[in-house]
């Protein structure tokens, strides 16, 4: 079954970057522009992995994460947090909420692919 990744970021540039990044792989990419939208899509689609931005308008990544952990269906969904701020405060907060991993923006593409590949299988569309 094709793994599904939900990308939640208010930056369209980042969402398009992730779409380009995962295009060569056999996975389905879902998108949301803020935590509120992301929570609705996550509840409906139950993705295999969520790549979640930390700082967003409407509903930020931390708030969404807290709400996700209250939903039985999303309690164990793996999350990789994207954050522009690598300060200790934000990292400590996401660690407490059970985030599987984090990536500081800007990131090297191979770094993110490596971390995603440790959570879900990333198989090239050519190999499939």
């Amino acid at each position: 079954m094709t793994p599904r990744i939900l990308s939640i970021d208010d930056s369209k540039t980042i969402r398009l970057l992730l779409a380009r990044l995962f295009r060569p792989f056999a996975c389905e990419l879902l998108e949301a522009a803020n935590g509120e939208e992301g929570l609705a899509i996550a509840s409906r689609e139950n993705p295999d992995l969520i790549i979640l931005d930390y700082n967003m308008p409407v509903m930020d990544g931390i708030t969404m994460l807290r709400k996700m952990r209250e939903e039985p269906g999303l309690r164990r969904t793996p999350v990789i947090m994207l954050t522009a701020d690598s300060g200790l405060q934000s990292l400590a907060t996401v660690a407490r909420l059970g985030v599987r991993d984090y990536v500081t923006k800007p990131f090297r593409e191979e770094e993110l692919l490596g971390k995603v590949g440790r959570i879900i299988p990333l198989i090239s569309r050519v190999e499939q």
Partner: protein
Amino acid sequence: MTPASNKPDLHSIGETAFTEVLGTLLSLSATVRESANDRPVSAAPDEISSSVLLTGQRISGSVHLRLPLTFVAYAVRRLTGLDGDAGNASELQDDAAGELANMVAGRVASQLAAHAYPCKLGTPSVSRSARLATKNQKEAAHGAHPETATAGPRTVPVRSSIGGGEARECSTPPRPSDVLRAGTARAPVGVSRHALAHERTDLICEGHWLSLEIQCCYADP
């Protein structure tokens, strides 16, 4: 410029943050320009300005980027893989400029936190300006930012120079000159005065002149 004692070296922090973001995100190297006096005026390209506010208990301020439109269009194409007209879409360009400012501000905030000045990032704000050609470079150096004057709604210049490093005093969190609007630059009554620091870094990257300004207002004098 020598940074004020016991305060983070904003010039070094800004330079490192900006070059690292360009290198990591876009795989581009940049050359730091020590003086803005030789900034090319003839090209006078349209620019996108993007700002992120920093807010903390001991520090507040802003990180402000000024990027030529052509550079931002290049970045959009590089990041998204979209080519042609898609890379020129103004919505995407604004978004990319805001995201670049967000990333630079994130690195600046991390360094400030390492110096015991933790702060949070605001949401990026973006504006566009068409630079007016100046008659000569000295006007640009001595005037109240004629090169940032916009062709649209007029902005009020609030700084008389762009030198960095010296400690000044402020009573409100600093903002870039072209973010302030007429009638907003007044100090609230009863606010204590704090030390203000302001640094500017100019980079040449792929033939484009990019500018970063960091303004900080310290709660401690």
